[in-house]
Each structure stands twice: as structure tokens, then as C-alpha cells.
């Protein structure tokens, strides 16, 4: 999940919680305030009533036959009632204020009711003063609804603002990841640049990355130097031995047995040279020492490669079927590296082919790439070995002493250098043999 989205979600969530709490608490608070007001009014009326009774007596208020009295105003919002009590309450003289529902003329109305017992003329009475509060509930609901709506709108506005603000805030971060890290394919291409931001963390992050990349650059440079030195130090003595052996073989009167041993030594030196050169080759590609600015026609290149392996095909009586279609131009690339890539895969296919078998080389154009498939009918490769076939010095046949296992690692290195994909199909996925599918991406 993107940081920006996380921030926005967090902000929205925290605000929602606050608003929810506020929305829940608000009606309670409003109710309390309103009741206080009502209670004050009721108490004032009680004082008035008490004064009236003291002055004029209960009879003045025209009691009916039941010795009770009740009076409602026209909207039944307020009333006063006096009724005789048969029993003396325990807390005589105390004022009670309750909410109660009254059925008045077939209408249930909610009232806030103040009640107090009093004695007049040796008669126990209960005085009730009520005020309707149905309209108050309605008011509370209205306020609550209004508040929630307002808050919701505010939340939405804030989410929108937060999202935009975080986007602006994170702009330097995105710049660091895209321009500095993702687009740098090789450390040598990295240029340490300050970043335009007032955020301390990003300035620090940028500085740290610059420092780190400088260290990596140094490491790469020293590795490159190391490779050059090692190759010089290894190949010079090999060179001396190589030429000394040739001079020895050139001497007259050397017996054949000695000649044969010298030839064997020459072979060993040649092997050493090839391993060192293969390593150099791989590290030079990895070190970005090859230019990548040529264009190549993959069909023509494959024809060249096939002509170079004719003796191998002939030796094993292998039939190579080539079938190319579509636009097989590949750009940008290093022609000689692409040549090596295709050569090594075809040579590998021949090596593991059975005598009198067939190798199919097929080139097909697709939307995003040009695909070359090289399929043999050879001994195949075990399913579990497929992920390892590009590992250095891996050989999957115990009797394979003919190679040193650097052909496919070289292929992998060249492929990575060019962004070429290689898919290997073998094991149970094929009836026999192995298929390599090389995907050459189309340039944009």
C-alpha cells in the first residue's frame, strides 16, 4: 500500500473516530442543558404556585368534586395539576422531577414533570407542574443529524486535502526512488545531486543514498581494476609457458612421446586461458564495459552462428531446421555479445543432442518482443535442475567432462545486460529434449 494512501486513511480514520465520539456525546450534552433550563422554569413555577396557594388557598384554584385540579394550556405543552394524596410519602417536602408520558385526550405526550407533596387545611395534596418535551427530542435529533452531516463533509474535505498535501510532501521521495535508484542501471551512471525539498528526512535520505552510491562506485571501480590486474597477472605467465612449449615443440629431434605430452600441456594451458577469459568476459559485461548501440538482424545473425557450428552438426549428423518470420531487427545491442548468446545456446543444444536427431530454431515476432526458440531432441534436463542451469560450473551429467560449465552463465549475463528474457522448458513439460525461448524486447 502506498504511503500516501496510508496517511490519508489514517487521517480519515482518526477524524472519523473523533467525530463519532462527538456525535454520540452531543445529544447527551444537549439534553442535559435543555433539562437544566426546563427544571429552572419548573422550579420558578413551583414558587409561583406555592405563593398562589399560600395567598388564596387551594379552594381558590377551584377544585372539582374529586378535590383535584388540572389545567393544560392549549397545546398541552404545559400543565398544572393538584390531586389529593391518600398516603404520606416518605420524603415529604422533597421536589421530584421526572420525565413521564401522559395520555392527554388520546394523545401520548412526553413531559418533564415536577412533583411535590404538600398539606393544606389538613389535607395531603400532590402538586404537579409539567412541561412538554417532545419538541426537545426533535430538536436534539435535528442538531445531531446536522452535526454528523457537517462533520462528514469536513472529513471528506480533509481526506482530499491530506491526499494532496502528502502527495506534494512525498514528491522528493518519489524523485529519489525513480530518478536516483530505479533508473540507474549501473552504479557508474549515478550522479550525486542534491534534492529540492525542505523536509529534513528526505535531505538526509538523499545524502545517505549519495554516500552509499559513492561507496558502491568505488567498489565497482576497484573490482574493475582488480579484474584487469588479475587477468594481466594470470595471463602473462600462461603466455610465457605457452610460447615456451611452442618453442620446445619446434626443436628438432624431439621424440613423439615428448611432443605428445607437450601438446597435452598446451591443451591444459588453453583450458586455463579459456576459463580466465570467460570470467573476464562475464565481469566485463557486468561492469558495463561493453557498448550497447548497435542494431542487429537476428535472422542473419542466426545464419552466421549456424555456419559456425556446421562441423558440430555434421559430426553428430544433426539436422537443424531454421524457420524465421517477421521483423527480426534488435536494437540497441552489442552485436558480438548477441552473437555469443545465440552461439552458446545453439552449441549447448548440439552438445546435448543425440546423434541423428533434430534441432529446431524458430523466430517469431510478437507485440512486445521477438522470440527465438531453440529446441533439441536430446537427453533433456531434469525438472529440478532447470533453475540451476545458468549457475557457474554446473554440469548436470556426470560424464560431461568436455566443458567447464561457463557457456550458459555467459548467456545469462549477456541476457541481463540487454534485458533479454530466457525461458527454459524441459523435464515433464516436453516429451524429449530441452527448449530455450529467448525473448528480445522491442525498443520503445
Amino acid at each position, binding site marked *: 500500500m502506498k504511503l500516501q494512501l496510508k496517511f490519508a486513511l489514517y487521517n480519515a480514520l482518526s477524524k472519523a473516530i473523533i467525530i463519532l465520539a462527538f456525535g454520540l456525546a452531543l445529544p447527551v450534552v444537549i439534553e442535559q442543558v435543555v433539562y437544566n433550563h426546563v427544571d429552572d422554569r419548573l422550579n420558578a413555577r413551583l414558587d409561583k404556585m406555592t405563593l398562589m396557594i399560600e395567598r388564596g388557598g387551594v379552594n381558590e384554584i377551584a377544585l372539582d368534586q374529586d378535590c383535584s385540579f388540572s389545567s393544560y394550556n392549549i397545546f398541552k405543552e404545559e400543565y398544572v395539576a393538584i390531586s389529593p394524596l391518600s398516603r404520606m410519602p416518605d420524603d415529604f417536602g422533597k421536589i421530584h422531577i421526572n420525565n413521564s408520558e401522559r395520555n392527554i385526550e388520546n394523545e401520548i405526550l412526553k413531559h418533564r414533570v415536577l412533583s411535590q407533596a404538600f398539606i393544606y387545611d389538613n389535607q395531603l395534596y400532590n402538586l404537579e407542574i409539567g412541561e412538554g418535551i417532545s419538541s426537545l427530542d426533535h430538536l436534539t435529533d435535528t442538531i445531531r443529524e446536522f452535526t454528523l452531516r457537517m462533520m462528514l463533509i469536513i472529513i471528506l474535505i480533509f481526506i482530499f486535502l491530506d491526499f494532496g498535501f502528502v502527495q506534494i510532501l512525498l514528491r522528493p521521495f518519489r524523485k529519489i526512488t525513480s530518478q536516483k535508484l530505479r533508473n540507474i542501471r549501473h552504479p557508474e551512471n549515478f550522479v550525486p545531486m542534491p534534492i529540492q525539498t525542505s523536509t529534513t528526512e528526505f535531505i538526509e535520505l538523499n545524502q545517505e543514498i549519495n554516500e552509499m552510491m559513492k561507496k558502491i562506485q568505488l567498489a565497482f571501480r576497484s573490482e574493475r581494476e582488480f579484474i*584487469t590486474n588479475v*587477468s*594481466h597477472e594470470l*595471463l*602473462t605467465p*600462461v*603466455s*610465457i*609457458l*605457452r*610460447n*615456451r612449449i*611452442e*618453442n620446445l*615443440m*619446434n626443436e628438432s629431434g624431439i621424440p*613423439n612421446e615428448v*611432443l*605428445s605430452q607437450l*601438446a597435452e600441456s*598446451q*591443451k591444459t*594451458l*588453453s*583450458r586455463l*586461458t*579459456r576459463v580466465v*577469459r*570467460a570470467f*573476464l*568476459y562475464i565481469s*566485463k559485461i557486468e561492469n558495463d*564495459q*561493453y557498448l550497447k548501440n548497435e542494431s542487429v538482424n537476428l535472422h542473419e545473425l542466426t545464419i552466421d552462428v549456424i555456419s*559456425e557450428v*556446421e*562441423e*558440430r552438426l*555434421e*559430426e553428430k549428423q544433426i539436422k537443424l531446421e531454421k524457420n524465421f518470420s517477421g521483423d527480426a531487427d534488435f536494437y540497441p545491442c552489442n552485436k558480438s555479445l548477441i552473437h*555469443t548468446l545465440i*552461439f*552458446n545456446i545453439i*552449441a*549447448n543444444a548440439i*552438445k546435448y543432442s543425440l546423434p541423428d536427431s533434430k534441432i529446431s530454431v524458430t523466430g517469431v515476432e510478437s507485440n512486445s518482443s521477438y522470440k527465438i526458440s531453440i529446441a533439441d531432441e536430446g537427453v533433456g534436463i531434469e525438472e529440478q535442475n532447470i533453475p540451476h542451469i545458468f549457475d557457474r560450473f554446473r554440469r548436470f551429467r556426470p560424464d560431461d*567432462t*568436455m*566443458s*567447464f*560449465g*561457463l*557457456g550458459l552463465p*555467459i548467456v545469462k549475463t549477456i541476457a541481463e545486460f540487454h534485458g533479454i528474457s530466457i525461458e527454459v522448458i524441459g523435464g515433464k513439460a516436453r516429451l524429449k529434449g530441452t527448449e530455450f525461448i529467448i525473448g528480445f524486447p522491442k525498443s520503445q
Partner: protein
Amino acid sequence: MNVLIVEDERQLSHEIEIFLTKQGYHCDVAFNGKSASEKIFINSYDFVLMDIGLPDSNGLQLLKEAKEGGKDAAFIMLTARGTIDDKISGLDLGADDYLAKPFSLLELQARMQAILRRKHGLKNNTIQISDFLMDIQNRTVNHGSNQINLTKKEFDILHYMALHKNRVITRVQLTEHIWGDVLEDDYESNYIDVHMKNLRKKLSQYGNSDFIETVRGIGYRLNMS
């Protein structure tokens, strides 16, 4: 033929000197850039074998100076550093050829011969091998009036063997000459035998090809008087 060997590795320069002297070249050696520079300007050489990595200077720099000084010696650059830039800039600066160490002395000799042919446009560019006549310029082999249809590799093999006649050429030497620096995963390949078999078959359709001798366990020899 005068050759200057510029190589700071004395043992290596010694081996090259032994070989070339035996081939009839007159050799001079320089172990550093300073002495090489002096020798190039005082003496007249047909060939300069120039190591690129010298202790006191760069072989490419010396090559540049010599070319600017109007020296017409053929330069063959030698390097063990294996950087591609060296090869490209060497050839750009007017070097005639380039060899990566370790190289075969036979290959060195073949390259020198090729430069000579190119430079002097030799008229008599044919080699008589038994009943066969090899034309280097036109890359043809004839038996009488019949032209033998050889592939590029077959021609190159025959030519290389003729160049080093009466000497055992190992499979390694032949392989390297034919395939050059191709990064080959197989180190004991005998693909050269396939070509040799075909070459013999083609030649023996017209005449006796016994002059190509297989030396068991080593390689081949072209016997020629």
C-alpha cells in the same frame, strides 16, 4: 626483416625472440617505453610487436608517436589486459593487428605474413602443395585446371598448415586459428577433425592427399619438400 619486440616481461620477450630468430627475422628487444621509443626513431623496423601495458608508458602512446613520426613499421599490439577499448583504440591509431595474450607463436607468424602480403601486394601469391596450387589472393585451390570447392574453414586450415609446413600443428593451435577468440565452452573439442576429414576427402578426389599427415595424439603436419 627487422623486428622490434617491446615487452617488459623478459621471459616472454625471450621466447618470442627465439622463435622469430629461428624463422629468419632479425630481432631487437626493448623492455620499457623509453628504450622502445629511442629504438623506433633511430632504427628502421619492418615490424614492431608492442605490449600495451608497459611499466613507464603506454604502448598506444608509443604507437601514436611513431605513426606521427612517419614510421612505416607494421605494428602488432599485444595485451593481456583484455579490455576492448585497447583493441579498438589500437586499430584506430593505425596498428596493423592485435593479439591477446596468450597467443600462439604460429599465429603471430601467420599474422606477420598476412601483413606483409597486404603491405607489399605480393605478386607471386601462390603456394604449390604437391599437385595442388593454392592461390592466397583469390582463395582458391586448383589441381591442374580443376578448381576444388573448399569451404572458408577448409581453405584456412590448408593455408595455415602450408604456412607452417613440415611442422606438427596441434589441434589447439589449429582450433584457435580457425575460431579465434570465440568463447568456447568445450575445451577438448575435436571439431577440427571434421574439417580435416572433409578437406582430405575433397583433395583426394583429384590427387594424392597423403601430404597431410595425422600425428597421433598431437595434431597434423603438412609434409612438403
